[in-house]
């Protein structure tokens, strides 16, 4: 099974909102704690190392793109 990047939620705004609201009122450190737990819970739910690695690669690629853009702007 490959990582699905098509839109899977009927109401994507609700999903985004749910995550955002979970962080409301938290300090930076608390938010980071919440994210760490959330990542592990969701990773276990997926239960497929190849999919997890694809997701990690996608997330990292985005960071790489952002840092390349920042360098070009300097």
């Amino acid at each position, binding site marked *: 099974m490959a990582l699905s990047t098509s839109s899977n939620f009927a109401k994507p705004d609700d999903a985004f909102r749910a995550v955002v609201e979970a962080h409301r009122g938290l300090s930076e450190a608390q938010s980071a*704690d919440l994210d*760490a*737990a959330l*990542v*592990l*819970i969701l990773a*276990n739910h997926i239960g497929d190392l190849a999919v997890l690695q694809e997701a990690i690669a996608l997330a990292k690629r985005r960071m790489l793109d952002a840092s390349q853009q920042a360098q070009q702007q300097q």
Partner: protein
Amino acid sequence: MTQQSKTLFGYRRHADQDRTGTEAARYPVVVVGAGPVGLSLSIDLAQRGQSVVLLDDADRIGEGSRAICFSKRSLEYWDRLGIGQRMVDKGVVWSVGRIFHGASQLYQFNLLPEQGHKRPAFINLQQFYAEAYLVDRVREFSAIDLRWRNRVSGLEPHNDHVVLTIDTPDGLYRIGAQYVVACDGARSSLRQMVGAEFSGKVFEDQFLIADVRMTAEFPTERWFWFDPPFHAGRSALLHRQPDDIWRIDLQLNPDADPTVEKLPENVRPRIARMLGHDKFDFEWISLYKFQCRRMDKFIHGRVLFAGDAAHQVSPFGARGANSGLEDAENLAWKLDRALRRASPQALLESYHAERSAAADENIRESTRSTDFMAPTSRQEARLREAVLSLAKETEFGKRMINGGRLSVPSTYDSPLSTADCDSWRGGPRPGVSMPDAPLAARAGEAAFLTDAFIQAGARFTLLAFANGAAVEVPDGVGVVRIGGDDGYLDPEGLAGARYDAEPGTAYLLRPDGYIAARFRRPTRQALDAALARASGQIRGV
């Protein structure tokens, strides 16, 4: 400190020391280092009919408990060397581990949940006992020439032999050997003499080991704490050893000063907080940092490396001494065949292939454990905390906690294995260490499959589940037959179940008890081919 070296051995001058120059004595195999690995390897070689010179630079068995956890696989090996029962009789048997976070238990595991194995998952036994028993066993073999205070100071490789220069209280002498096996530990001087690299990951965290003597009611289990109340923010481990000795491992801060931390007056209050009382005496205190690393090649010409000399791991997982013993059992039969010219030199190359892959696995597993115990960044610590807190209410969190994954035998992806041709629903595939099972002899007495393997000679052996006429096996191959008119009985059906057996099923076992090949209906031709491959006579696929 009350504990002294348990045994002292005398240096004795050997006639070889009176020979000079080109007349140096020549031996088939010289083993360097009389630790658990060198001693076991020497016994194994002697049992296979080889003469061995075993050199050690000391005249005593090292002090301190050091390696304490010996695995089922190691005990099965020591059974083959005739010393397993003595180890088990003295050792403390355990299979249950508990993991605590703060004051509460998170998780409990059983390393050997099923019955029907001769040996337990682990025993705890001080390394000096293991070494003393092995030395006693060595003394029963006239073919093993154990020389104390013989330090190798020079190594000269030749095409068909190696010349060693040996330093003794009487000065230098030289001997030649067809093969030299270096079992001389993490600071191996032979490794330096062959100029081999030994690089890897260094861990900054320091750990303190204390052996304390006390009478306590703790159960015989492995207890591991993350962030315990008595040692905030760090980890701790408690293990029982024979003689009312308890091993305590405490993780210290990376910047802790070793000389200060090691002082009994500084260790005592920490341990008193852990145990809740002050009624104990110190036997041994040691402070260590560790590295995970291995040699690129375990074979340098005619010098072969085994145990800590070849690879080092962190102690979490009991993968040091146990993997060294697996090296010994892997090497002994191959070296024996090479010396007898029953197999080509190529068979020895499989020692490197199989055991370096096992070292990689052990390094990977123990590095992961260590990283989990001592996270190296704020975010790593955060993920670790998330796992520990999720473990309280989820099964997946419990399984993700890594307080040490304990040593199990490696599976070899090996050129010596014959790929499966038949269809199997279970059972050990080629490259897997043979699982034990209870059997009964015809006369009724109970036995185990591992015993039957020893009785068949611990050589290439066909484990055959009977189906009418017995299979004809090649010369020199032992047979363990289950069922039929003359075979062992399988009273609980566990041998059949563990080997996915049908009538006619047969496994070809290597002399180290690993599966070389398996067949639903073995033919003589298929057996010959598998045997040729497993003994290094066929290369490639």
